[in-house]
């Protein structure tokens, strides 16, 4: 098993005829993702990689069973596209757009929570269960990073995920499911909300979170461990420990503000909950070994 996506997940692609959409649809299918249909208004009747295209999500879902929607939609139109997917009753949505307006993300998160749906992103590469399936833009063919195994990975960053996950793989581990929650201040779904899925997943023996300064998502993970909602071993790596106060470091969400979000606070919260924090990417694998996590 894996979480969020596997080979049985029936995926619709919004924005499938665009450059990004068609390119990544091909790679998603190459990995084994079950892409059943796509949507681009005005392009009904066309096909992309043998997949039929419809004018609207509603129309597509009349002809296909759909479990999840993958959005390749520009940030300005993301809110509309997410609401269209929600309106068609889709409960798993991944949006990779970088630059979604803040107030749009508030509306997206609020609506999806109320409807019991999970939106992953924006500003992310998406979700991948290596050797099985993915929704997003991962170069799944890089074995140094995307190797199947028993470690769940959650991350706020893209390039840093390669760096850290490569170290996990180098230590002899692999990944069950990797979820990029994204680098924005308001991600659709937060670290702690995925922990429950990893907790129940038989193929995940431990979780690595790749966090950074800003916000309170890492603190919520600590809370979940303290309250017993997550009981598996957890190792964190956090970027921005030496970042100057009040400085936004790259991601819109990576800033200490209102006295909250410093890496020191996050380390304190996580270690007091019993998680281990790696000072350097290289040490993530070592700490998994220290926790006695089996390599399989």
């Amino acid at each position, binding site marked *: 098993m894996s979480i969020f996506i596997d080979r049985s997940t029936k995926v619709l692609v919004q924005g499938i005829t665009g450059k990004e959409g068609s390119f990544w649809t091909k790679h998603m299918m190459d990995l084994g993702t079950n892409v059943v249909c796509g949507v681009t208004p005005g392009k009904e009747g066309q096909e992309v990689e043998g997949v039929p295209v419809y004018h609207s999500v509603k129309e597509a879902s009349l002809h296909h069973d759909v479990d999840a929607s993958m959005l390749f939609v520009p940030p300005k139109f993301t809110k509309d596209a997410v609401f269209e997917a929600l309106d068609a009753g889709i409960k798993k949505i991944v949006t990779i757009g970088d630059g979604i307006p803040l107030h749009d993300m508030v509306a997206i998160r609020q609506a999806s929570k109320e409807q019991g749906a999970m939106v992953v992103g924006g500003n992310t590469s998406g979700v991948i269960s290596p050797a099985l399936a993915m929704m997003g833009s991962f170069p799944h063919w890089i074995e140094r990073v995307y190797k199947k195994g028993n470690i769940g990975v959650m991350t706020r*960053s893209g390039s840093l995920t390669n760096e850290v996950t490569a170290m996990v793989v180098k230590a002899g581990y692999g990944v069950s499911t990797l979820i990029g929650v994204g680098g924005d201040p308001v991600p659709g779904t937060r670290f702690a909300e995925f922990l429950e899925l990893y907790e129940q997943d038989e193929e995940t023996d431990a979780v690595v979170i790749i966090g950074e300064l800003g916000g309170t998502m890492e603190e919520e993970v600590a809370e979940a461990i303290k309250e017993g909602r997550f009981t598996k071993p957890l190792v964190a790596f956090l970027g*921005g420990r030496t970042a100057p106060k009040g400085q936004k470091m790259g991601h819109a969400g990576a800033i200490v503000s209102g006295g909250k979000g410093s890496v020191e606070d996050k380390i304190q919260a996580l270690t007091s909950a019993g998680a281990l924090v790696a000072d350097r990417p290289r040490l993530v694998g070592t700490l998994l070994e220290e926790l006695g996590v089996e390599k399989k």
Partner: protein
Amino acid sequence: MKLYEYQAKEVFEEVGITIPKSKLIERIEDLDDALKEVGTPCVVKSQVLSGGRGKAGLVVFTKTAKEATEEASRLFEHELKIKQLLIEEAVSIKEELYVSITVDPASAKALLIVSKEGGVDIEILASESPEKIIKEPIDMRYGLMPYQASRLAYKLGYDAGISKSLKKIFLKLYHVFVQYDAELVEINPLFITEANEVVAGDGKLMIDDNSMHRQPRFEKGQSDYKSDAEYEAAKEGIPFIEFDGDIGLMCAGAGLTTTVYDLIHYEGGSVANYLEFGGPNYKKALESMQICLIVPSKVILVVTFGTIARADVMARGIVDAIKELQPDRPIVTCIRGTNEQEAVSILKEAGLEPIFDTEEAVRKAVELAKGGRL
């Protein structure tokens, strides 16, 4: 995008929030006219985007025209290159409050935050006396309801007149928050004057950068950037921050760049600039290096682990940029990811010694910055 105080106050005034009488000047010659309009005593306020202006001596209370002239002259000659001063009427203050509206990511709501202890650093207040801060969640579908604003205003314990004014200000501030796609809108301090008027003593308005396409009113000009390098980077759409250390970073991805920034400090080095040339900018090696070279640094460190941003394309870009720009300082490269074998040969052919391990590359850069050899 962070607005200047005078811009935030312009917006406040437009929605009907009372602000003190004031006049913006850009040269000392205009001070007399401003003083005629505003009167003395007055407050001379530097229009800079950093916080803590009072403590830094950038906001000064002056009693006479002579004092105002002295302070204004001093500030115009300040090393921070202050370009604008707001000359503002000194109101007679009875009390100072704090009020702000921001987004709460976990609950997906807006948050109206009020305290009777304004004028202080709200972060310090939040950690030392959180009980003195009142928070009201706002469902953004419906907006701030009048009853919420009213309930909060009366909770503060003022007389009916002031409470009514506060309620109106909360509602107007929420209007600004929505209209300008704000990350944060804040009035600190919000004055209650001797005449029981409620007046915005300061103004902070931060517009969400991702919403700038639908906020055409405010555009950043060259003078709004801290340096030429920051302006050049912004024009190219390259994320860039200037610091005052030794090592120029030219890395890919926000998280990785931030981590390299940390590792340099762990190794006892310092950072001259943060620059991301990954993602959509991975073909902009030349532009990126050009910007890095504007900054006084001792070495440039390139660290990437690109996927869509192919390693070979980035390596080729670096090599071409070196040929064209003939940098006057060493370049350390650690380029990995898609097609990294090709990247290695491209770098080696150009006489560079590619490194594969981030920490090793960081140590090399720190050593070079301290005067070591390549």
